[in-house]
């Protein structure tokens, strides 16, 4: 460790420029035009036009089955659109975090993170990059362990390190905090916000939790019946205070839209039941 720091110091000009280029990658914009997606005869998304400026933190909310996950998977290229155009970063510039950590159980933590290292690096370099990414998520000391010994939140942090190690310009988050307990969730939200602010990538977070969306995002869109039903800017200072009146007002607006249109009573009854 010390050796490495020293050698980095000795070649400070190149090291500094390397760091700069890494951070200069910044965010990449995303543009969707006339996007439609259907599985067989079943339409999931239709007529979606969406511009995400570079570096924006966008949250996508909606009921389960509304097509928000499909939208995200189409953005990163895991699904191909049935119609329309998707313009977004690809390859190691675009990374996705899934709801499940999806770590390889037979690979040590550091080797799991190494999966995200772009090709063309030596094994030692890749390992060093993986260790650095693990340090970013606070798990540097667990590098040599098996995934099975980690808690759910720790596994998701390893998955985050794996997503970040290539310094992506677009990070897609498919409800990555959905399965975590409430406290771990808040910790993870803070971690996500911190790395997003440090690295400046474009973030697209799919979540069913409106308050999570409002705690993190610059902008929230609501998907209903396969289309964007609401698109609101969240122009609040960070870090945001949970339960502040502005957040409560926005949350009310989104939930009104979700449960409005006459469906509200049924939905409320359902949630009470």
């Amino acid at each position: 460790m010390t050796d490495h720091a020293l050698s980095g110091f000795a070649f400070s000009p190149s090291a500094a420029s390397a760091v700069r280029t890494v951070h200069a990658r910044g965010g990449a914009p995303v543009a969707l035009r006339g996007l439609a997606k259907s599985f067989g005869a079943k339409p999931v998304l239709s007529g979606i036009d969406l511009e995400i400026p570079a570096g924006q933190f966008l949250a996508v909310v909606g009921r389960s089955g509304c097509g928000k996950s499909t939208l995200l998977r189409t953005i990163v290229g895991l699904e191909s659109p049935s119609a329309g155009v998707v313009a977004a970063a690809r390859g190691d510039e675009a990374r996705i975090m899934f709801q499940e950590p999806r770590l390889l159980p037979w690979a040590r933590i550091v080797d799991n993170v190494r999966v995200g290292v772009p090709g063309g690096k030596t094994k030692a370099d890749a390992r060093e990059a993986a260790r650095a990414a693990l340090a970013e998520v606070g798990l540097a000391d667990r590098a040599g362990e098996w995934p099975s010994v980690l808690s759910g939140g720790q596994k998701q942090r390893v998955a985050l390190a794996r997503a970040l190690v290539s310094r992506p310009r677009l990070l897609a988050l498919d409800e990555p905090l959905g399965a975590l307990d409430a406290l771990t969730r808040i910790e993870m939200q803070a971690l996500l916000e911190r790395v997003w602010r440090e690295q400046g990538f474009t973030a697209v977070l799919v979540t069913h939790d409106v308050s999570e969306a409002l705690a993190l995002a610059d902008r929230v869109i609501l998907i209903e019946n396969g289309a964007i039903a609401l698109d609101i800017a969240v122009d609040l200072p960070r870090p945001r205070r949970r339960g502040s009146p502005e957040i409560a007002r926005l949350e009310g607006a989104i939930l009104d839209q979700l449960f409005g249109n006459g469906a509200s009573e049924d939905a409320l009854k359902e949630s009470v039941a």
Partner: protein
Amino acid sequence: MRLELKSVLPFLIPAGLIVLWQVLASAGEISQSVLPAPTQVVAAGWRLALSGELWANIWISTWRALTGLAIGGGIGFALGLANGASKLSERLTDPSLQMIRTIPHLAMIPLVILWFGIDETAKIFLVALGVFFPIYLNTLHGVRTVDDQLVEMGRAYGMSPATLFAKVVLPGALPSIFVGLRYALGIMWLTLIVAETISASSGLGYMAMNAREFMLVDVVVLAILIYAALGKLADSGAKLLERATLSWHPAYVSR
């Protein structure tokens, strides 16, 4: 003290049986022509070991077993991987393989003798045929049940097909492949014993059959015990290999 007792426990019954067997044989309760005493079996082993006959037979049997395992297991492994990965390959070969599987491989012995005589080829062919199916089926099952989510992750993270195979598919299929291997090891010895007993001019099965001709019951019992020991040895080897390669698996964590 307690730990020692625990490690001795599994040996109590076998050791007790041997003592009982020795006592009954010495007392003349068991006829020599039915079951010679353990001491006589050991003496027969000593005699054959000294003459070198024992080692030559063990060696030739082991060689046949491992060659058959390598050939049949290798083909089964390759076809299992291919059919797990490619629908085309599976459509083409799996129905025929399943058809052949319904034939008990030992039923092929008369045909195999007609084809190959009582040559080495006959026995290696039978062993290869016997071990092929457990390895093929379990490899196929292992590859098919690899977590799709991990495969999708690998693709999304830009793994090439070769990397995906080496880092995701093969390690994921390994536990199942080991089940196939351990099953195949049992079939390997079984097939060899039958084949050598029916038609051979060397090997442990031949040694036992030859001894029967001369009413050397001690040698027959010796051959049976050696088969048991070799089977156990092969299984322990597979277990060790399993432990070494599946150390990530919570079920194999060394305690």
